[in-house]
């Protein structure tokens, strides 16, 4: 396996696909573009990619991306998968993430952001592979964030966060007690979201923490302003 990573883009819109491919190629990745799920799966038989960017709506298959994600996740637990889609509904995002995608991005984000996300995911994979002991850890009471592995733990129990969620938690926990408004959180997560998306992100994050600790109350809402991390 060569050093250059293979990034596969499964996107039925040729123009967007080619743009992404061009950008990724410029970044030094090897790229492969596919218009449909079938096409992608066929190609992955011979050459399994290192990262996959999937659109949910693939030609005739309205939810082809979800299915592809499920197939790929079945084959590899480590393969980073990013959903990049025009569908921005809460439901779609939750569905995508539940299927094991590492990130869920809308097509609004710039190529810069996309490339940053791709790089971050690769870094996490590497970190996991290297099993680096002196990982960049951030500890805030019961919370432990590993910036290299992009992993999060609460009271020793892992909390599965997406990239966006990870960075939101990171941004809050970095300076406990300090108010973070929505824009700051969006910047931290390197994403463009509307206010309600931030709200639902927070809601999801809380839900995930509450799943491992019913008494979780570290994220405080300050209405009209933003959120802050309560250290105690």
């Amino acid at each position, binding site marked *: 396996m060569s050093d250059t990573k293979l990034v596969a883009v499964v996107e039925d*819109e040729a*123009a*967007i696909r080619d*743009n*992404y491919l*061009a*950008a990724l190629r*410029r970044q030094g990745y090897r790229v492969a573009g596919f218009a449909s799920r079938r096409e992608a799966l066929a190609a992955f038989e011979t050459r399994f990619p290192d990262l996959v960017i999937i659109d949910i709506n693939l030609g005739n298959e309205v939810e082809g991306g979800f299915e592809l994600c499920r197939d790929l996740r079945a084959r590899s637990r480590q393969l980073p998968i990013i959903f990049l889609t*025009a*569908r*921005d*509904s*809460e*439901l779609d995002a939750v569905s995508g993430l539940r299927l094991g995608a590492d990130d869920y991005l*809308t*097509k*609004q984000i*710039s*190529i*810069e952001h996309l490339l940053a996300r791709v790089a971050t995911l690769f870094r996490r994979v590497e970190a996991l592979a290297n099993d680096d002991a002196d990982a960049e850890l951030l500890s805030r009471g019961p919370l432990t964030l590993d910036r290299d592995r992009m992993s999060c733990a609460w009271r020793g129990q892992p909390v599965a966060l997406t990239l966006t969620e990870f960075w939101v938690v990171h941004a809050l926990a970095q300076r406990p007690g300090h108010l973070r*408004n929505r824009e700051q959180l969006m910047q931290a997560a390197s994403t463009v979201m*509307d*206010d*309600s*998306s931030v*709200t*639902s992100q927070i*809601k999801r994050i809380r839900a995930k923490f509450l799943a491992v600790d019913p008494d979780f109350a570290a994220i405080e*809402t*300050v*209405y*009209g*302003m933003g959120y802050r991390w309560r250290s105690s």
Partner: protein
Amino acid sequence: MSLRAQLLAVALLTLVLPWAGWRYVVEMEGVLRVGLEQSLLASATTMAGSLAALPPFLASGGSSSNGPDSRHETLYAYPLTSAPRIDGYPTDWNLSDAHGRALGPRARYWAGVHERHLYVHIDVPDDAIVYQRAPTDAPYGDRVLLNLGGPAERWLVINTAAPGVVFARATSAPQFAPGTRFEERILAAWVETAQGYAVELRLPLDLLGPEPRFGVGLVQVTPVPGGYEAELHTSWGDAGSAPGRLVRRTPELAAAAAQFAAPGRRLRIVDRQGWVLYDGGSLAPAGSATVAQRGFFENLLRLILSRDDAPYDGFENPPGYLADPELRSALARESSTRWYRRGADASAVVAAAAPVAGSGGVQGAVLLELGSDSILTLTNEALVRLLGFTLLASLIAAAGLLGYATLLSLRIRRLATAAGSALGPRGDIRAGMPGQRARDEVGTLARSVNDMLKRLAGYTEYLRSLKGKLAHELRTPLAVVSTSLDNIEREPSAEHLAPYLQRIREGAARLDALINAMSEATAIEQAVTDSPRQRFDLAKVVRSCGQAYRDVYTDRQFAVEIDAGSMHIDGSADLIAQMLDKLTDNAVSFSPAGSTITFTLHRERDEFVLRIGNDGPLLPEAMRAQLFDSLVSVRPAGGDGRRHLGLGLYIVALIVRFHGGRVDAANRADRGGVEFEAGFPVPPAS
């Protein structure tokens, strides 16, 4: 005219039932009348038939063998209730002046029968009574003559020399000189009266034979200078001819007729001239009750059944003589009937007359009368019941129709109300018309209105989801543009294109903002349907937000005024915060820099009222109603380049509605700005 009024009017048609009842009663009465007439006539005919064969009938003077007589010649002897004393005074006669008949110009006579005797009373006014002073004293004084009829003329004369008991002697025309033979069976008394004299006499009927003829006469002697003048007057006219028949009521006929007696019926038998030979039975006494005394239905019935029966005009004149037309007709061999009214209450009487015809022609007639009050009673009962039933039927029909109309108009009104309120204030459509299961036309109407509303709701839903779909569909081509731009910017050769690329970038950014706004609205719509409700303190959220806006919008003043205490409502604090964001964003973008934006939150009766005011330009009055609709913006064109899609206030309305509240925008009373008012109902204390 409401449906109910219309159907009530239709119900009035059932009043035709009482009318039909009235017609029925009238018809029935007519039939009953005819039936009564016929049965009465049949009875009369039967009686006449059996009477014709009876000898007693003939004995009473019904014979026609002596040829025609004028009724004036006939001497009718009235039945006397008791035997008068022969004393010259008529005080013990049960007859009145009316029973008397003329004898000459001034004198009158009365004739009566009691048992086997004929009584005659003659009253003669005479200024100068002439007595026969001596047996040869011509011309024998004032005399009373009796003609006993029969094959040989038998004249008797009564004269006297002084008042007292007098005797009848045989005599003869034309001198009527008293003969020598006395008729001892005749008893007579002569008295002087104030006007003249009177003679009362009694003679046995046996003197007269089986077909009696009898007449009375008078020789009036008047002294004149040098002698006397005598005038002759008879009860039958020509003194030279036979006297008229003696007609009387015989006990034999009474016995024969008594078998026909029936209560409520009056039977009269007359001879061929119309003289009453028998009068038995009586009509039921005519009701003397006045209108007020009678029952309502009886009065109504009398009104309904009032017929133009002629009042009775056939009184006996003279007494004992009948000239009723039906009787006249019967005497001319033609049975007939007649209705007439009698009495104070004009009750109807039916009379039937049938001829009594023997071998010798018509000998008399039977007149049978019956009061028809029995019909009235019968029809009264029928009418009362019929009217009762038909009125009841009418009432039931009217009540039924009224009830049905009420039901129908209620259904239609419910449908109308439902149709009127199907379109909610925010364009939301509630189908579900009432009464769709009904199989009638109203049900059809409800179903078709419901279908229409469903289709409309579908269309509205489509329009509502359009922006979500549109956002999604636009995002892909926009992504094509922006990713292409990203790529171009990395091309070193594109330096000189930078200004154009910048413009494209700006355009794409605006498009992006629009799409974001649209998808945000969709997201909120979704959030509104998904959000769990929790109780939270509205005051705290507003206070917190107000605080935050001071930091965010540094070029505006914020005046926050909130009632003390907590104001808990059920809903989502996050959504309320978003609503405040939108309202504040709106207020900030309209108001001039440095101006004050006011927040007030009070409890007013049953709701918490939040008001956010700004000094921005006034709202056009016409747009107020649509202000909170999707894709409506009243911002002046041109501006800061931010999105102007009119979704902000739509989101506000969505969130307020989610909390069961209301929102409105109005120009401030001082015309200095605009105020948004949102009311949230105070939840019941938990």
